[in-house]
């Protein structure tokens, strides 16, 4: 009897929902979602629902760590919903418990996608592969990989946690005591295999694909199983070699992609809209569409994507997940990564001090450098330098007007910062002159192969010179150094885009938040 009443209540509720969502009803709310880049392929699904409800939905993509940082007490949250790659980032940062109704939308393990011929040569297509096998391949120089920054992106953090966990033996989870000794040592040695880093998993996959088009073929990349599937769909379409999915037998990290509501006093309609959106994504119809992308969903909700044995993909295969450590342990593990274990970076910062930067531009640039070169401030958001990093700062206008070099030691950072403080905007603009000087100084550095190199060009205007001539003039070795642009004011994005594209870099918009742009850019180096 109670069951009948329950069913009747559900029927009434359903009728109400249908009435609420019917045509000719009130337009839905404007609704802002902040999400990890790996959810980009699911945006169409979200927008479909929003369109039907006549709501204006906006999805903004950020690294999971940034999403978490944005939830710290005192932060002004600008979103109605969060959709990071893993719930752990919410548990770590949302101490004011502003996020509610958190539910996993899909799951995807973080795996190592290895170019098929390479995987075959390593004997990895026939037998289980342990982290120790990956280490042996890295140390014998047979394997290098792309991996996002563990301190900016969930896929990198997940791969890193799986690396730390592989040396645990009979213990199930990393505790503070594992952040020195065998676990940390194993992770550090594995991380020497990083060939390129980034702040975004989606961008990393794009880098792999665009490089393949240009004939630069990377060996491997750590990414979500579902992102590897998307990459393989494209590689297959272009008739290129696929990435073989390696699921380390020691355990993989599972991303649970939870969608949660952020209470910011917008009233019951907005909460209702969220509940309906979440229910739609979790409905059999929604889950079927999500499962078709290669994401894993519980079997009761929808059928999984078909296995694709030619790259070892089977979303029904049971994989053992590495348990997530306590939030405090993760926090410490991330600091350890940033300050000690990651491959050291070699960064050239080309700073535009041309006449057009006078006033606001100049002071925004000085503030950004204060942030980047003050260890305590950079550490708050985990972009601090490590003592092993090398920093080269080159202010320029029509030419390079000064130069400071140092390590990531606090004293060196201070020395560089003091130099930058003496600079004043004046003269013309030639960013190519600065980039050329940066490349020259990098090549002159002994042991350059130990570092992850990158050039960051901040500029606010049209530069003298020509991107094509600059790119054509680069040697093969110089072309392996990615150049990142950071725009300010009315910068000519076209010029920066051209050199970023040619070198496998990208352009960040620093117009609204120059400090934030520099911080994001650090994740790529």
């Amino acid at each position: 009897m109670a069951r009948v009443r329950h069913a009747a209540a559900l029927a009434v509720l359903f009728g109400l929902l249908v009435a609420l969502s019917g045509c000719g009803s009130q337009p839905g709310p404007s609704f802002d979602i902040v999400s990890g880049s790996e959810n980009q392929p699911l945006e169409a699904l979200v927008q479909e629902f929003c369109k039907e409800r006549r709501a204006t939905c906006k999805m903004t993509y950020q690294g999971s760590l940034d999403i978490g940082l944005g939830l710290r007490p005192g932060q002004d949250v600008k979103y109605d919903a969060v959709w990071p790659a893993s719930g752990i980032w919410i548990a770590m940062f949302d101490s004011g418990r502003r996020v509610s109704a958190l539910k996993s939308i899909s799951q995807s393990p973080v795996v190592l996608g290895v170019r098929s011929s390479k995987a075959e040569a390593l004997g990895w297509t026939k037998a289980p592969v342990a982290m120790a096998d990956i280490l042996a391949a890295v140390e014998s120089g047979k394997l290098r990989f792309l991996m996002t920054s563990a301190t900016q992106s969930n896929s990198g953090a997940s791969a890193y946690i799986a690396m730390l966990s592989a040396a645990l033996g009979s213990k199930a989870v990393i505790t503070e005591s594992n952040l020195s000794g065998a676990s940390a040592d194993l992770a550090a040695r594995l991380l020497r295999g990083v060939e390129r880093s980034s702040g975004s998993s989606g961008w990393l996959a794009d880098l792999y694909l665009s490089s393949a088009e240009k004939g630069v073929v990377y060996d491997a990349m750590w990414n979500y199983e579902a992102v590897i599937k998307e990459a393989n769909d494209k590689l297959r379409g272009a008739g290129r070699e696929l990435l073989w999915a390696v699921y380390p037998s020691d355990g993989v990290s599972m991303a649970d992609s939870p969608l949660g509501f952020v209470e910011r006093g917008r009233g019951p309609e907005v909460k209702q809209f969220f509940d309906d959106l979440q229910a739609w994504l979790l409905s059999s119809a929604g889950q079927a569409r999500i499962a078709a992308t290669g994401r894993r969903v519980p079997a009761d909700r929808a059928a999984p994507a078909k296995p694709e044995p030619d790259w070892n993909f089977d979303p029904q295969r049971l994989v053992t997940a590495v348990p997530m450590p306590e939030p405090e342990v993760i926090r410490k593990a991330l600091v350890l990564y940033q300050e000690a274990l990651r491959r050291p970076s070699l960064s050239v910062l080309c700073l535009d001090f041309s006449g057009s930067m006078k006033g606001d531009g100049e002071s925004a640039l000085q503030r950004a450098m204060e942030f980047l070169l003050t260890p305590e401030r950079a550490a708050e958001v985990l972009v601090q330098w490590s003592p092993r990093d090398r920093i080269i700062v080159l202010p320029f206008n029509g030419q390079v007007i000064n130069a400071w070099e140092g390590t990531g030691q606090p004293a060196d950072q201070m020395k560089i910062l003091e130099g930058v403080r003496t600079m004043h905007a004046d003269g013309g603009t030639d960013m190519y002159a600065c980039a050329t000087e940066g490349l020259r100084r990098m090549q002159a550095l002994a042991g350059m192969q130990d570092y992850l190199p990158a050039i960051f060009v901040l500029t606010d205007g049209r530069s003298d010179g020509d991107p094509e001539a600059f790119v054509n003039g680069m040697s093969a070795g110089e072309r392996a150094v990615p150049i990142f642009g950071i725009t300010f004011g009315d910068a000519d994005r076209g010029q920066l885009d051209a050199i970023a594209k040619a070198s496998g870099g990208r352009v960040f918009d620093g117009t609204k938040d120059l400090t934030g742009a520099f911080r994001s850019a650090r994740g790529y180096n």
Partner: protein
Amino acid sequence: MTMTRRAFGIGLIAASALATGGYFYLKDTKYLRQPKPLTGFVGGEKRGFLANPATIAALRGDGFELNARQAGSVEMVREAQILRQDPDFLWPSSSVMVEIAKENSVPIRRAEVILNSPIVVYSWEPVVAGLEAAGLVRRQADGTRTIDLALYLKAVLAGRSWSELGVGDLSGPVRIVSTDPNLSNSGFMFAGLVANLLAGEVTQQSQLRALSGDIGALFHHMGFKSNSSGSLFEDYIAGGPGVYPMAVLYENQLIEWALEDGARWQRVMAGSAKPVLLYPAPTVYSAHPLISLKPAADALIGTLLSPALQEIAWSSHGFRGPLGSPGAAAGAGQPTIPEKLTAIVPMPEAKVMLDILQLLS
């Protein structure tokens, strides 16, 4: 036929007299009595039960309208911030909370257990098959399965691997996860059960020192722990056997989930990864005592113990009654559960539990 204005007027007076008389006649019956609004704090696992329209109607029928705010069981009996809000009642999820409330000088008028749900281990078919072969899990005559949890905990402490325990589908060391004992009652109950199993009896304060290393290690090696039973259950379902091979939760959560959507339950049971409840023998009961703090809330206890509300709690939400027996026989579309749990061990006393919480904080 048209109605004259006079007839209409008489009709109005008659209707109004009837309404007034009717009101006075019915006003003290359950049909018209203004429900008494009561404010209190309730553990999150009873949210579904209290939000059920049938529950709301039955409570109204007895003259109650509950404004139940969600709070953790441990915090509701000891946080000044909550008690300062002058609640009419508290409805935590463990009898130990009544003792803790007394120790904190909470002005208890009456306290009685309304519902029960045992603490069980949620696992999955492929995992359980291995544990069964290894002798850790036993299938009972009624189709339910029991686990030798003391032995399993020892295997976790010893760092035994899944393959050593017969589970070839999983790699690495065996594990088990609960919610955070300091934040959520199911984790709190599990901490009590762990202490009892390690002690081999109801843990006394004098034994705690010797056990603290093992209790600490078990919870420490769970890694990240959810802050609510509801979210751990969601994660268990979404993560499957690879992520949550063994999770500690209330029995009623799976029953409630199965009842909520029968077709979904059929699909789950048709798949390869079926949820399985493992009953530790002995286990602990999560009792749900209603603590009345104001005269107005005293009668709420009787109402919640009425057959109508007990029936809703069982047939829609899977809560057993105050004596631990389920309601009418479970239907075919529901998880298999034992009619009666014979091996129940009391929780350690409040002082011991508070020390354990301290140890795990």
